[in-house]
Structures are given as structure tokens and as C-alpha cells.
């Protein structure tokens, strides 16, 4: 285990998240790029594991979930220390926990082994994010002004209206219902313009922040040359079953597990950043 920490956790940024585990039902684990291993376990597992943790913030009066945090890069956590040995004993012998993990490692100028070669003796599969493209035609888009966050009557829409509209577009909600419509009264906020073609790209997978930054930089380059578009958006959804949302704030599912952020980038490279969390979350920084 210590070779893993030296090779991947202490160098570059290593990310791991258990796959197919529900944060409100199952045991879940995550490794953060700052070297902290977070275990979110149910009461029975916690008691059997014997490691020190704290009750979950979202557990209610009768605590059913505990969070154990182990700092793998702590100077006190080396192969000879008591702490290290206890953690290893708990996880290997006392209550062995098995998970499928999604793993990613970012190391610019990488030399030495990669995750694939390190885990070659175990079951590891290299995966790429799934990318889909679509073109939306004749789309009603809200008119926005970068310095008018609340919108200006008859001139631009507010940030909330944009946020709702974006949700409608991405869920294929019809945008032009009449207020007397039987089924739905949702319509595109005013003022809006009809855009002949809009481009939508969806990337699904275990995507690390470093890649998102690269994507953001590329999107900013889009406005390097004159373009008809006034603004573009980048929406990032966090995993609903991750034990943490922003930084190390505990995250719970409640009714939806949402934790997401949305960039709106304007032609002049002004931008809006909107962040949203669910009920069982702390406010984003």
C-alpha cells in the first residue's frame, strides 16, 4: 500500500471514487487529490472497523452513518507508525471492505509507472469518457448581459432565469408553451432570441478538475475569433453518491444528490459562475 501512496498520492493528483455505491445506503469511499481517504460507512461497519471517525452530519437523531478520514500524506502516517498499522489492520483484517473504484491520476511530466501498470495484476480496465454531440435547431435563447445579474426588464434575463432555461434545454423540455396550456406553462424567459443552430456536447465519465480547466481554457479560445454567439455555458455535475462535494464538505443524497456548477462565458470573456447543492450539503465556497 505504501508504494501506491509514494507513487500516486504524493506525486501529482490522484482521485478515486467507489463505483455503484449509494451514499445513503452503502459504504462509500473516495480518495481526494490532497491525499485524504474518506470512508463513509454505515453504523455496523463503523463499529466493526474500529477506526476513529465522526458521525455524519446528515444522519439524524439516531446516527446510522459515520465518516472516517485518513490523511495518507500526513507525516505521522508512514509504514512504521502506529496509525498506519492500525488503519491497515482495520481495513485488511478486521473488516475488509471491497469496492470497485473509478480511478484517475494526473501528473504533468509523468515518468515512472502509471495506474494501469501498477494494478496490472488486479482487474483494471482503462476507460475513456463517453462523448456525444448534438445540434439544436431553432432554439429560443435568453438575452443576457454580463454585468446585469438580475436582468433588466426588456433588455436581458436574470441568472436564475438562465439557470432554469439551461435545465429545460438539457432535459429537452419544450420552451414555447402558452400560459393557458393544459400540460405545461414553462416558456423561455423574455427577452429572447431565436438561434438557428446551437451546439451541445455531453461528456460522461470520471472527469478530473484538471481536465475541466483545460476544457474551460479551450472554450475561452472559442471567442478568440469573432463569433456570432454571445455566450456559451459549461455545466459540471458532481457524482450524486460522492461522500464530499466542495473541498471536503460532506455530501448527502437526500432526494437528488445534486452538486453542480455552471459557467456562463461571454464574448468579452466576462463570466458567471453558478453553483448549486442539494439539501444535505454545505454551501459551496
Amino acid at each position, binding site marked *: 500500500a505504501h508504494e501506491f501512496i509514494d507513487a500516486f498520492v504524493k506525486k501529482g493528483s490522484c482521485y478515486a471514487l467507489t463505483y455503484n455505491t449509494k451514499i445513503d445506503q452503502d459504504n462509500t469511499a473516495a480518495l481526494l487529490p490532497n491525499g485524504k481517504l474518506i470512508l463513509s460507512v454505515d453504523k455496523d461497519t463503523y463499529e466493526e472497523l474500529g477506526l476513529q471517525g465522526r458521525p455524519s452530519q446528515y444522519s439524524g437523531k439516531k446516527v446510522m452513518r459515520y465518516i472516517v478520514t485518513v490523511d495518507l500524506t500526513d507525516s505521522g502516517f508512514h509504514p512504521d507508525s502506529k496509525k498506519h498499522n492500525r488503519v491497515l489492520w482495520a481495513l485488511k483484517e478486521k473488516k475488509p471492505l471491497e469496492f470497485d473504484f473509478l480511478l484517475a491520476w494526473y501528473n504533468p511530466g509523468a515518468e515512472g509507472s502509471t495506474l494501469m501498470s501498477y494494478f496490472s495484476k488486479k482487474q483494471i480496465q482503462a476507460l475513456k469518457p463517453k462523448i456525444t454531440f448534438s445540434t439544436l435547431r431553432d432554439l429560443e435563447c435568453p438575452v443576457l448581459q454580463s454585468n446585469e445579474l438580475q436582468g433588466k426588464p426588456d433588455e436581458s434575463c436574470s441568472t436564475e432565469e438562465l439557470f432554469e432555461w439551461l*435545465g429545460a434545454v438539457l*432535459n429537452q423540455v419544450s420552451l414555447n408553451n402558452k400560459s393557458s396550456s393544459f*400540460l*405545461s406553462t*414553462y416558456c423561455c424567459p423574455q427577452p429572447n432570441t431565436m438561434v438557428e443552430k446551437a451546439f451541445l456536447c455531453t461528456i460522461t465519465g470520471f472527469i478530473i478538475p484538471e481536465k475541466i480547466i483545460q476544457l474551460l481554457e479551450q472554450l475561452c479560445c472559442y471567442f478568440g475569433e469573432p463569433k456570432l454567439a454571445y455566450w456559451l455555458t459549461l455545466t459540471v455535475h458532481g457524482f*450524486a453518491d460522492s461522500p464530499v462535494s466542495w473541498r471536503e464538505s460532506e455530501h448527502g443524497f437526500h432526494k*437528488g444528490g*445534486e452538486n453542480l456548477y455552471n459557467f456562463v462565458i461571454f464574448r468579452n470573456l466576462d463570466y458567471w459562475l453558478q453553483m448549486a447543492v442539494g439539501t444535505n450539503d454545505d454551501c459551496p465556497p
Partner: protein
Amino acid sequence: IHLLINNYKSTGWYLLNNVFFSQVGAALPVDVLTYEEKTLSAILRVVSSGLVKLWSALTLLGFYQNRRCAFRVLQASPFLLALSGNSRELVLD
């Protein structure tokens, strides 16, 4: 608030129309934002104070025109955008 729901038995479009607007809609305005026949799932929009009423109405709906049916709420969120990315649906090849 927005609900993403899934209808188990295929009682179809009419169920959403008639049932909601006769039983729930009379008391509470509900928008049916989307409906997908293939997956039998829909997105509903209701004012926050009406969430409990709507959710209970959906839960208690067991029959429609003598056919059994059941509704399951997959996701509920005040943000429509949050419904467009559900990591619980992530399937790896």
C-alpha cells in the same frame, strides 16, 4: 421544485393528463415538462409548498381505469439542471 418520475406499468400519456389534472391539478398547478414514452418517465414541476401533496398523490396512486400502476420518484430537486446529470445512471462498458 422538479420531480423526475418513472411509471412502472404502461398506462400511458392519459394517466398523466387526466389523473394529475383531476385529482391533483384541481388543487395544485403542476407542469408536466417532459414525458418520454420509451422510458415511461416524466419531469414534473410544482411549487415547493406543493411538493409533499404531489409526492403523496403519486405514491397513493395505485390504479387508473382499473389498471394497476405505480410511480417511483427518481430525483427531486429545486434545480431543473440537476435532473440532466444523474450519476446513478452511469454504466461503464
